[in-house]
């Protein structure tokens, strides 16, 4: 069986399951909405202050929301021990990981697309730098979150407290990426410096961790 065919089939299956249950997307939306509303009540920033803090607020909200989706990804495979059906099949491990990561990427990107207008309205945001750079920042930043998140969610599925374990593993290793996302977003919003260095950092982070996760995933999948 081809790598791409298994990846495609697994991704289609995951999207179908999420479309029917809406477990991940509803929980993420609700959580992000709460963050936007609560922070907007907690602070009453001027437009200038908003530009300085919004990068951090946005990405922290998405990071926490992504954890919800990441936990769901593998929880689905544990119900009825379906993951064992994959493990006894001759399909290689990597397509499963890639499909899960791409699925999570789609869920989080959809969330970001839905929440971005709310952030703009609540925090009166208007980028002073090149707005188009927000697109690569969103894509690379989201991939950085989901690629490690998918991997560490898989690592923690057999632990008793996997909901707690995932953030404990994911957040420290995501710090360089988070720094890149926040600084790049702030740079675009304030227009005071170029975001290029941070975008390059995100790209390098994504490449390194995608390769590392793909190389190590089979060991995780085969672990008892």
């Amino acid at each position, binding site marked *: 069986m081809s790598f791409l065919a298994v990846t495609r089939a697994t991704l289609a299956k995951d999207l179908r399951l999420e479309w029917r249950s809406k477990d991940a997307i509803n929980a993420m939306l609700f959580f992000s909405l709460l963050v936007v509303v609560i922070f907007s009540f907690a602070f009453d920033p001027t437009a200038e202050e908003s530009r300085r803090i919004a990068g951090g607020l946005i990405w922290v909200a998405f990071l926490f929301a992504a954890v919800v989706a990441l936990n769901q990804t593998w929880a689905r495979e544990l*119900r009825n021990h*379906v993951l*064992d059906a994959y*493990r*006894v099949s001759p399909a290689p491990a990597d397509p499963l990981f890639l499909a899960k990561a791409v699925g999570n990427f789609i869920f989080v990107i959809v969330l970001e697309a839905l929440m971005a207008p709310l952030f703009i309205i609540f925090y009166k945001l208007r980028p002073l730098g090149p707005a188009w750079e927000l697109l690569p920042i969103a894509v690379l930043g989201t991939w950085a979150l989901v690629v490690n998140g998918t991997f560490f969610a898989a690592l923690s599925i057999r632990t008793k407290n996997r909901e707690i374990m995932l953030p404990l593993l994911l957040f420290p290793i995501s710090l360089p990426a988070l720094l890149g996302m926040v600084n790049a977003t702030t740079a675009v919003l304030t227009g005071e410096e170029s975001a290029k260095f941070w975008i390059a950092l995100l790209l390098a982070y994504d490449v390194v961790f995608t390769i590392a996760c793909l190389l190590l995933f089979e060991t995780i999948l085969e672990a008892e």
Partner: protein
Amino acid sequence: MSGVSPIIVADAVIKQFGRFAALRGVTADFSPGRLYVILGDNGAGKTTLLRTIAGLSQPTRGTISVLGAKEVKTVRSQIGYMAHPSLLYDEMSGMENLRYFAGLYGIEDDAVAEKRCREVISLVKLDPGLARPVGQYSQGMRQRMSLARALLNDPKLLLLDEPFSNVDSHSAEEMAGLLAQMRDQGKTLLVVTHQPAILESVADEFVWMDAGKIVDRTSKLRGAQ
């Protein structure tokens, strides 16, 4: 023993979970084209033995060779495995589940996959057109769909863990007949069950386990268990 090479050879297999030994030096071989029933009390090591043969669990010590391979993963395409849980997605229909798993076994062509899925669903006496999600199936229907999934790849070796649990007696007899038919086609079956009487008339050998060891192998079902 006949001159036929065994399909499974276990040599002093020990499987430990922490300090608990689920298998304590299992040495056995299983010949091709036979239906074996594995019996024993809860905790005797039946499921662990099946999972080890399926490659889902690695022996702590000892070796196990399946279909001539030391690495089970190289012969996975020839193994069918049915576990106690259904190994199916509750939110998808039986056909959707099977179409997905067919892809994992390299059955990618839509028409071929559809045909094969319909075949195995019909084989277990379910309706391939059933659109209901598996989560709404009765337990018996779920068991049969789970068996259909294990048959998808037309395996040489079938490992079945409690295939008759929660299945009504009529359906269980039908399933037993199907298993006998598979054995007659040359497949090897290892069936873990607490209801050996269902397979009494079709089984070739009963393998008795206790405390992680194979303690007896008989051609007839003993009265007292």
